[in-house]
Structure formats: structure tokens, C-alpha cells
């Protein structure tokens, strides 16, 4: 069956450092993969989309990589700030053009 794995443990990181989150998927060959941010009690907000033929995508302090051989995407927040504290969801595209969401990985940036 198809699975998406994100680290269930919160990532605590010092302000100014780079936070790196991992998304592993099995039994998928997604044409693209998306990352969302979710704050407590709110709906997810789209951040980045990376396609299968792209190795890396950047948006301001965010960087996403996509390794279709390893079946893995990495999400980086550089120069992290307390305002970056949130849960980040990985969402690969499924065969029927819907998204499958991971359970999310919480990031806590310590001032």
C-alpha cells in the first residue's frame, strides 16, 4: 500500500539555523510533490510544488529537493525564525490527481 512518512517527533531548532524535514514515500511515483504549512487550529497553506523532473526548488528561505530514486523529499528552512514554528505537511500527487498528505512534522524555532 502507499505510505508517506514524516518524522512524528517535533524538530526543535535554534533561531538562525537551518531546519531540515524529511518526507519518504513508498509505492508512489508522484509526478509532483507539494509542501504545506499548518498553524494550530488553521487550514494548511501551500508553500512549494516540485515536479519529478526538478531536483530542487527555492522560495525565499525555503528549499525543497526531490529524489525520485530514493523516493524522498527534503524541506529546508534556512535562517529559521520563531515565526517559522508550525507543522509542515508533505503531499505527493496520487495516481488519480489527488493529493495524499503526510501526518506532518512540527518545527519549533527557539529564540
Amino acid at each position: 500500500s502507499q505510505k508517506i512518512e514524516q518524522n512524528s517527533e517535533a524538530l526543535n531548532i535554534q533561531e538562525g539555523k537551518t531546519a531540515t524535514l524529511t518526507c519518504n514515500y513508498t509505492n508512489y511515483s508522484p509526478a509532483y510533490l507539494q509542501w504545506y504549512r499548518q498553524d494550530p487550529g488553521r487550514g494548511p497553506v501551500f508553500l512549494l510544488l516540485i515536479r519529478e523532473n526538478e531536483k530542487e526548488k527555492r522560495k525565499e528561505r525555503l528549499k525543497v529537493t526531490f529524489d525520485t530514486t530514493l523516493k524522498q523529499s527534503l524541506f529546508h528552512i534556512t535562517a529559521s525564525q520563531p515565526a517559522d514554528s508550525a507543522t509542515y505537511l508533505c503531499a505527493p500527487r496520487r495516481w488519480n490527481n489527488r493529493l495524499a498528505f503526510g501526518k506532518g512534522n512540527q518545527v519549533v524555532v527557539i529564540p
Partner: protein
Amino acid sequence: DVKVTQSSRYLVKRTGEKVFLECVQDMDHENMFWYRQDPGLGLRLIYFSYDVKMKEKGDIPEGYSVSREKKERFSLILESASTNQTSMYLCASRNTGTGGYEQYFGPGTRLTVT
């Protein structure tokens, strides 16, 4: 900016009641979605509508139905609410024309069934 609104932020209903959750988007998006989100389970798709009057079951449609009579509005109906339907319900929309395929979410409705 795309705006997706949901009729209530918090809702408390009794077991057996019929419950309507409403979602409205203002960007003429073709696709709309209803998800529920539970701790430890993540976001799960209940129903998907790819256009007006069109719907498809998601991963967990049992106990739910939907209605999409107008493009901007997508309703989720709990025919007879049960305690295991206590959850956060999230609506989303997507414009297939842009090629980006990102989904825009509403603020969510936290439903408690007692």
C-alpha cells in the same frame, strides 16, 4: 487572493442529528475537496468534486454525503452524526487551469458530536 470560507469555526451537535457544513470559494475554482483531520491520522479525503454536480468518493466517504449545486459552494452533510465523526473538517479548492495544482484551504470547522 483566493479565499475559502467555512460556515462555522466550531460546531457542537448531538448524536443522530443531521449536520451541514458549508464551504464557499471566491476564485471560480473547478475542484473542491472535503477532508477531515484527526491527531495521528493526518488529513484524509472524504469527498472530491471536480465540477458542479460532479462528485467522487474519497478515502473515507462512509457516513457522509456532499452537494455541489453551484460552482462556488460545496456542502458536506453528515446524515446522522455519530461521536466518531468528531473531528476538524477542512474544505479546499483548486484551479486546474493554472497548472500549479496547489490547494487552497479554508480555516476549518471543529465539529464535536456528543
